[in-house]
């Protein structure tokens, strides 16, 4: 309909067909993603990190059913020199009730690694009166530089109500010659495009999930 006429069903200004179609597309996509409005990205991840994430998610393997595959980049706090005692904080936007069936923590070990690296990963629980609990999730040994995908027990991993997930790293060199110069070395890369990230496969717990499991 031409400009200036009134929309017969909603009484608003009649939109040209193309504009109407774009509005419908926006509504359809937001509904399909269960969003009320489009996300406002304040801190987009670095392009190089995104490229790696897209490569990680690319090959087929779509999350089954009403599932999602998520790549979450870590915010790193703790010791600035040795990232071996860093706290990795992840902010997940998970559905109210969900089932996590695959979890891997990706870490980048620098080429200057002087020897084998022994790593323990703890999950820090939500803040309680007597402080935070922390649970040992996994132990790994890394002997080569580059990316390492450390599998985490999906049953043990649970984000807080707010979607925050905190992992504490505790690593040391096995042959211990890193202190030769008296200074702890950078045993993990955390620069922008080598920032640690979590790769998760999540399935929202729909009403029928329980029945399916029982069946």
């Amino acid at each position, binding site marked *: 309909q031409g400009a200036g006429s009134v929309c017969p069903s909603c009484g608003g200004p009649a939109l040209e067909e193309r504009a109407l*179609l774009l509005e419908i597309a926006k509504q359809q996509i937001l509904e399909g993603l269960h969003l009320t409005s489009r*996300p406002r990205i304040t801190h987009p991840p670095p392009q190089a990190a*995104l490229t790696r994430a897209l490569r990680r998610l690319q090959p087929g393997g779509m999350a089954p059913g009403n599932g999602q595959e998520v790549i979450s980049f870590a915010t790193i706090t703790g010791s600035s020199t040795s990232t071996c005692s860093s706290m990795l904080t992840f902010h997940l936007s998970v559905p109210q009730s969900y089932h996590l069936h695959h979890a891997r923590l990706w870490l980048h070990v620098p080429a200057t690694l002087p020897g084998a690296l022994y790593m323990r990963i703890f999950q820090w629980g939500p803040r309680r009166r007597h402080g935070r609990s922390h649970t040992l999730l996994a132990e790994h040994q890394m002997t080569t530089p580059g990316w390492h995908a450390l599998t985490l027990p999906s049953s043990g991993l649970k984000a807080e109500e707010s979607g925050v997930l905190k992992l504490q790293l505790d690593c040391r060199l096995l042959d211990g010659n890193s202190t030769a110069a008296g200074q702890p070395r950078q045993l993990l890369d955390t620069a922008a495009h080598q920032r640690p990230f979590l790769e998760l496969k999540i399935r929202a717990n729909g009403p029928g999930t329980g029945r399916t499991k029982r069946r």
Partner: protein
Amino acid sequence: TPTCEPETPLCCRRDRYVDFQELGWRDWILQPEGYQLNYCSGQCPPHLAGSPGIAASFHSAVFNLLKANNPWPAGTSCCVPTARRPLSLLYLDQNGNVVKTDVPDMVVEACGCS
């Protein structure tokens, strides 16, 4: 599904492609670049009632009922989607996480008369 020439008045699938750039959403929808927002429209005269463009047997059952009863039923038949497929999206959520998910029944593949 009858092929859809622009001037076809009969029920068929109208194909429309929407580019996410046109929505101004390429900053958070990483892949794909757009999708087919197809929809069904057109007339469903009685002889096309129940012709879902796929399973003719349903059509013939309705047709026989029409013949056995009166040829001009009170109810009308509508042009509706009869086959749809999911759309796989890769997008950034508000925390900057990369999320890959299948949105079910997003793309209309076939139309027919109810």
